[in-house]
């Protein structure tokens, strides 16, 4: 068990820090939250800077245009960019972290050549069309259908919780190509151009008041068969293979951010006198233990992935269960620190508190995660 970084890792970190300290001060101001074209431009410009500096697709394999970095290097990258306050992956998220790796793993040579370089250079943005109104926790219940018509699929249905749909060039889309087959066996994965006729994007307002997501309505959208990745009706496997690429780095930036918020809570509480409340103070102390342990668990998972064993705990379900709960507790504690000030929606912590409400729901509710842990790790029987 070694928690020190190798000389190579430390030199990677040092180069990255030097580069960040050089480029970050020159960044343009952040666009407003509702300015989607502005956000796209800002996020893709940052991706282009990463590309030019050799950091684009850090964790992608070299033969996909990436840098083939180790999970530890990826951890260092995410840790340092978060600490330095660098832009988030933002609009590049789906391309870099899901659609791109899917194409890299399962696409043909042509598909890789067409789609991967623009992602790395920040030229094309992807969004994700997986969830549907009736297919949330139960994703395999998806109904959006694709009917073959010559060299095209004709796609109709609707998708939910699609980020960046307004400004995306492509959508990685799960569709039902064989309604007669067992649920998991009739699904295909398509790359849908977002400028195709028949696509309507409706912003979806969240309880935080913002419109970070959209609904996407598909009315006989024609998608070339050549845009299918993997075999017809094999889309479920294609998607799951990619999801299993988790190398333990999914929450690196977020855990670093939580530590920063926690330290700020302590400072604020010292300042406004609430630190004298032993109940609140020890609650913050308890959270310090929690996030320290979650950082160590992150390092454990990253090391396991690096050793080739994959991430323990079925690709991070164990981590996500604890982290999502801890993050909600963090913002409940923030509300205690703020007192009545926690009713001010303009306070950053209040906005983040609202966002944190989704953590036990999005990307698999805690209930679903507990099923996964119990059945796939502990081997408890399926069924009830």
């Amino acid at each position: 068990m070694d928690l020190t970084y190798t000389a190579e890792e430390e030199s990677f970190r040092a180069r990255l820090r030097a580069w960040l300290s050089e480029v970050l001060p020159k960044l343009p101001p952040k666009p407003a939250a509702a300015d989607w074209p502005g956000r796209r431009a800002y996020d893709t410009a940052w991706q282009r800077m990463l590309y030019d500096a050799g950091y684009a697709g850090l964790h992608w394999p070299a033969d996909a245009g990436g840098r083939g970095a180790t999970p530890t290097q990826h951890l260092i990258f995410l840790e340092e960019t978060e600490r330095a306050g660098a832009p988030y992956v933002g609009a590049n998220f789906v391309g870099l972290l899901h659609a791109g790796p899917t194409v890299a793993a399962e696409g043909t040579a042509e598909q890789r050549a067409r789609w991967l370089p623009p992602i790395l250079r920040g030229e094309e943005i992807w969004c994700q069309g997986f969830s549907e109104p009736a297919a949330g926790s139960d994703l395999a219940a998806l109904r959006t259908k694709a009917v073959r018509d010559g060299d095209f699929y004709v796609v109709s249905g609707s998708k939910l919780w699609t980020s960046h749909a307004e400004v995306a060039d492509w959508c990685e889309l799960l569709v039902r190509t064989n309604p007669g087959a067992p649920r998991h066996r009739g699904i295909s994965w398509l790359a849908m151009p977002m400028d195709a006729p028949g696509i309507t994007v409706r912003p979806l307002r969240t309880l935080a008041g913002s419109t970070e997501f959209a609904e996407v309505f598909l009315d006989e959208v024609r998608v070339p068969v050549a845009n299918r990745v993997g075999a017809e009706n094999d889309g479920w496997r294609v998607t799951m293979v990619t999801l299993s690429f988790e190398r333990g780095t999914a929450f690196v930036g977020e855990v670093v951010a939580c530590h920063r918020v926690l330290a700020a809570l302590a400072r604020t509480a010292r300042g406004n006198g609430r630190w004298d409340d032993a109940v609140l103070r020890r609650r913050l102390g308890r959270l310090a233990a929690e996030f320290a342990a979650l950082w160590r668990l992150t390092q454990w998972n990253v090391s396991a992935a690096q050793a080739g064993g994959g991430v323990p705990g079925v690709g991070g379900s164990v981590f996500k269960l604890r982290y999502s709960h801890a993050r909600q507790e963090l913002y409940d504690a923030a509300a205690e620190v703020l007192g009545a000030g926690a009713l001010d929606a303009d306070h950053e912590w209040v906005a983040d508190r609202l966002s944190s409400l989704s953590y036990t729901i999005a990307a698999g509710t805690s209930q679903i995660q507990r099923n996964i842990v119990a059945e796939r790790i502990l081997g408890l029987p399926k069924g009830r």
Partner: protein
Amino acid sequence: MDFQLSEDQRALRTGVRELLAGRFPTERLRAAVAAYEAAGDGPVLDRGLWRELAGAGFFSLLLPEAAGGTGLGPQEAVLVMEEAGRALLPGPLVAGVLLAGAVDGAATGERIAGLCDATAAPVLWDHPADCDEVIVVGADAAHRYAAGELRTAAVRSVDPLTPLARLLDGPSGAPYAVDVGRLRRDAALLTAAQQLGGAVRALEAAVAYARQREQFGAPIGSFQAVKHLCAEMLVRVEVARSAVYAASVTGDPVEVAGAKLLADEAATGNARDCLQVHGGTGFTWEADVHLALKRAWLRAAAWQTVADGTETLAEALTDGHIVL
């Protein structure tokens, strides 16, 4: 001993529930949200609705009949506030009930009075642009202000049905002669009753959704994980209800403290669990699930915090002040 609702109390509850279902259905709830978002710092309350509520006796509950009131008591006030909480009815309702005898026109709904807890930090005033008058209540004394007399700073409220402003000055102006301890106790009790109603709303919404929403080929309410969340929501409601109703009967300040504590827990806990049962749907603005949670947070911060409530109760434990 007969710790059950009387016939009249049952009828009152049913009447209020029906009144609110008719006068403040979901469309008007949403209109109220939209009004806040459109208002800037301006008024948002529907004065017509306010007068209708007054006409139905909402604000004259505690006024003696000689003063034009209904001559009812805290028990009835608590039942009405519970229903108001269940309907997520916006406005300074606690002030409406408690100041009906003190502020001209408050009982009839012609004028709107506000109450503001000055022991909070920061001091927040709800519905500042709607109030014609406001009583600012400190730990030991209260002061009375006409609208516009107070310097305030705008606050964007987390609860889209309750605009807020922050008071910029300490207490000054006309002293308002009142038993402050009693006023604070009554405000805590009526706030607890609204929290109870909010907890009931969240429970009902969660159960309705769990019955109807299907995943994995079955209603999600057939899965134990969802079932047990809902069961615990009901437990919170029933425990909080006993505490709030009993506190309305005894008026014991320690019992009120306990009732507020448990009602706050029920309201926030149930709203959180309701959101969890709703999954992604609950995270949308349109689903209205968030409104109960935000209101619960707002009310939990008013008139008694968890820290103050638990200290009051702890002190009573060693005082030999036995509630039981």
